[in-house]
C-alpha cells in the first residue's frame, strides 16, 4: 500500500503533461503513422498495377501517347477517392458485409497480376534459361518465406522505406539513361491516335480501383476518426510518378521501337534497354521485384483482413502462394490472355461496389 502510494507520488511528480506523453495523443500519433504507412502501401499497389498495365497493354498499343493514358487515370483516382471518402464518412451506419466479397475478389486479381509480372521479370531478366514452372515455384517459395517472416503491419511499414529506395533507384536509372534518349522520341505526341490512348486509359483505370480500399478495410473507432479527418488521396502521386516513368520510356525509344520488344519483361526494362550501367540494371530489376513483391504481399494481407472481417475468423494466408502458382506456370500464353480481358472491369466492379454501399448506407440512415 505504502509502495503504491510512493509510486503514485513519484509518477505524479515526474510525469510531464506535454503532448508526447499524453496517452490519447500518443495513440493518435500511432494511428496517424499507421495511416501514413497504409497510404504508402496503397500508393505502391496503385503504382505496381499501373506499371503492369502500361507495360503489358498500353505501351504496344498507344505508343508515344502511353503517358497520356496514364495521366488520364488521375481524375478517375480523384473521383474514386472522393466516393470512398463519402463511404468512410458514413461508416457509422455500418457496412453491407456480403459486399466485402467483391474487394476480396478484386484483390485476388491484383495478386494474380503481380505474380505473373514477378514470374515474367524473374524469367526475362535473371533466369532466362529456366523453365516457367521452376520460376513460378521459386517466386512462390520466396513469397511464402516473406509471409512467414513478416506480420501484416510490417508490409505497410516496410513500404514506407521501400518508397524512398524505389524513388532513388528510378532517379538513378533516369539520370544514367538520359544520354541515350532524345526529345524527338516523344513525338508524335498522340502516338497511335487519341482513340487508342483513350482505350488504354480505360483499361488502366482497372488498376487504380484499390484507392477505395480504406473504405472497406476493418477500422477501429480511432483509426476511423483519423481516416475521416485526413483528406488525402494516396494514389495520385503514384499515378503521376507512373506517368513520369511512361514519359521516360518514350524519351528513351522512338515510337516504332516501343512496340518492338517481344516479351513483357523486355517492355518492363525498356527504360534502361540501352543503359550500359550494371548498377542501373541491378537497381531497376531489384526495385521492380521488390515493388511487385510488396504489392503482392500487401494485397494478400489486405485480402486476409477483409476475409477475417467477413467470416469472423482468420484465414491461412500461407496457402496463397499455392493458389497463385497455376497462373505463374501458365504465364503469358494462358493466364495473361484471360487477365487482359478481365483487368479493365475491375474499375467497373469498384464503381458498382461504391454505388451499392452508398445506396445501402443511405437506406440505413433513412
Amino acid at each position, binding site marked *: 500500500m505504502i509502495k503504491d502510494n510512493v509510486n503514485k507520488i513519484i509518477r505524479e511528480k515526474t510525469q510531464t503533461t506535454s503532448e508526447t506523453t499524453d496517452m490519447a495523443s500518443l495513440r493518435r500519433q500511432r494511428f496517424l503513422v499507421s495511416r501514413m504507412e497504409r497510404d504508402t502501401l496503397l500508393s505502391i499497389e496503385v503504382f505496381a498495377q499501373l506499371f503492369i498495365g502500361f507495360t503489358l497493354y498500353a505501351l504496344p498499343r498507344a505508343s508515344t501517347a502511353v503517358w497520356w493514358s496514364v495521366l488520364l487515370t488521375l481524375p478517375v483516382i480523384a473521383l474514386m477517392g472522393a466516393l470512398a471518402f463519402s463511404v468512410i464518412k458514413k461508416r457509422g451506419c455500418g457496412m453491407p458485409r456480403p459486399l466485402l466479397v467483391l474487394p476480396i475478389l478484386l484483390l485476388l486479381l491484383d495478386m494474380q497480376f503481380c505474380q505473373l509480372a514477378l514470374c515474367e521479370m524473374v524469367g526475362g531478366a535473371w533466369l532466362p534459361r529456366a523453365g516457367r514452372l521452376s520460376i513460378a515455384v521459386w517466386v512462390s517459395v520466396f513469397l511464402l518465406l516473406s509471409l512467414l517472416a513478416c506480420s501484416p503491419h510490417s508490409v505497410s511499414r516496410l513500404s514506407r522505406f521501400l518508397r524512398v*529506395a524505389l524513388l532513388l533507384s528510378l532517379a538513378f536509372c533516369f539520370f544514367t539513361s538520359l544520354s541515350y534518349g*532524345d526529345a*524527338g522520341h516523344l513525338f*508524335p505526341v498522340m*502516338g*497511335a*491516335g487519341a482513340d487508342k490512348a483513350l482505350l488504354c486509359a480505360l483499361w488502366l483505370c482497372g488498376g487504380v480501383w484499390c484507392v477505395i480500399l480504406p473504405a472497406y478495410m476493418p477500422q477501429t473507432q480511432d483509426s476511423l476518426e483519423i481516416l475521416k479527418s485526413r483528406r488525402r488521396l494516396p494514389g495520385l502521386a503514384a499515378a503521376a510518378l507512373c506517368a513520369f516513368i511512361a514519359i521516360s520510356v518514350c524519351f528513351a525509344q522512338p515510337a516504332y521501337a516501343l512496340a518492338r520488344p517481344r516479351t513483357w519483361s523486355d517492355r518492363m526494362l525498356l527504360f534502361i534497354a*540501352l543503359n550500359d550501367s550494371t548498377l542501373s540494371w*541491378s537497381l531497376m530489376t*531489384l526495385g521492380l521485384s521488390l515493388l511487385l513483391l510488396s504489392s503482392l504481399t500487401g494485397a494478400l494481407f489486405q485480402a486476409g483482413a477483409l476475409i477475417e472481417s467477413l467470416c469472423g475468423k482468420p484465414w491461412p494466408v500461407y496457402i496463397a502462394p499455392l493458389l497463385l502458382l497455376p497462373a505463374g506456370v501458365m504465364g503469358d500464353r494462358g493466364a495473361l490472355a484471360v487477365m487482359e480481358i478481365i483487368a479493365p472491369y475491375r474499375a467497373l466492379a469498384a464503381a458498382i461496389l461504391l454505388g451499392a454501399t452508398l445506396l445501402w448506407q443511405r437506406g440505413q440512415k433513412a
Partner: protein
Amino acid sequence: MKRVCFVCLCCALCLCLCACSDMPLEKQIPVVSMGVDKTDKGYSITVKTPKNKAQQSGGGGDEKQAYLVVSADGADFAQAVNALHVSLPRNVNFSQVREVVFGEKMARAGDFAAIALLAADLPDMRLLATPMMCNGEASEFLKKQEPELGARLSKYIEGTLQNAIEKGNIPPVTLGQLTRDLGLGWSDPPLVCVSADAKPPEEFPAQPMDMPVDDTPQKGVSVVLAGAALTDGVSVCHTLSGYEVHLLGMLLGKARDCVINTEKGYITYDKWLPTRLSAPQKDGRFTLKAEVFVRARGAPQADQAYAEEALRSELEKLLKTMQRVKSDVAGFANQAVRGCLTLSDWEKLDWRTKYAEADTDITVHVLLMSGQ
C-alpha cells in the same frame, strides 16, 4: 535496425545480380568478335573467342594464335546460330562481344535490318558492341584481325575504336542504337567502315581527314578504321570517307574539329556552339535547314566569308549526297515528326520521298580566330 538489415539485404542482392547469367563461367565460351555473312546457301556466323590453355598448347593449328575463329552456316540465321552452338564444346556467351562485323554483301542485302535485329536479340548479346561493315567477307576479316598492341584483342578493339571516335574518323554507334533506330527511329544509324589488309595511301589524300586513323606500330595485318556506312532504313546504301564523317560531325555539332583543304590553304574548324537543325514545311515541300556555329583558324589569306563559304559548300555537298541515297543520318526526320500528331499522319507524309526532294538551307557562322 530493420532498415539497416534491409539495406544490407538489398546490397547483397545487388551483388548477386552482377553475376554472368545463370550458367557457370567455366561452361561458357566468351565471344570477342562476331561476324555475319550472307552466302549462296543462306547465312554464315563467325565468332572469335580466346583459346583456352589446352587449345593453345596442344590443340593443333597455329599455336601463336591466341584466338579461335569458328564459322557455322545455315539456311537461315537461327539455323546458323544453332550450328554454331553445336560446333562449340561449351555454351556461347555473347555478353563480351566488342564488335559485330557484317560482310559487305550482308550489309547491302535487303534483309540486313532483320538480321541485325536477330543478332542483337541473341541471348545476353552486348548491345554496346560496335556494328561494322567490312569490305569482303566478315569471316576473313575476323581471321586476319589480331591485336597489334598487347595480347588482348578485346582491349585492342576498344582502344582502337576509342582512338578513331576521338579523332572523328568513325561515328560513335552501338549495336543497341543501330537496332533501335534502323527502320524504326527518326534517324538512319550509320555503321563503322573497317577493312583488313588495307594498303596505306601512296599519296597524301586531297583532304587530310581522309588519312586512315590507324597509326599504331604495324606488326602484321593492318586493320583500318575510317569512314561510315550509311543506311536507308533497310540496308547499307552508301559509304562515307573519314573526311565526310568529320563533316557529318560538324553538321551535327558533334565533331571536335575538321580540317578542310581549300585553295587558300588548310582551314581548321572547331566546335563552337550547338548546331540548330530544323525541317520547316511549306506547301508540302520540306527544307532541310542547318545553322552551324564554328570557330575557324589557319589560312591567313582566308577571310570570314571565305571560311564560311568553304565549309557551307562542303556541308551542302554532303547533304545532297545523303539525300540522293535517301539516308537521313543527320536525323531531320526527328524535326519533321514534330509537326505530326499521330503515327498515321507520319506514315501519310512519306518522309523518305519528301526528304530526297527537300531543299537545303545551310548557314555557317564562323568566328575567325587569329593565328595559325
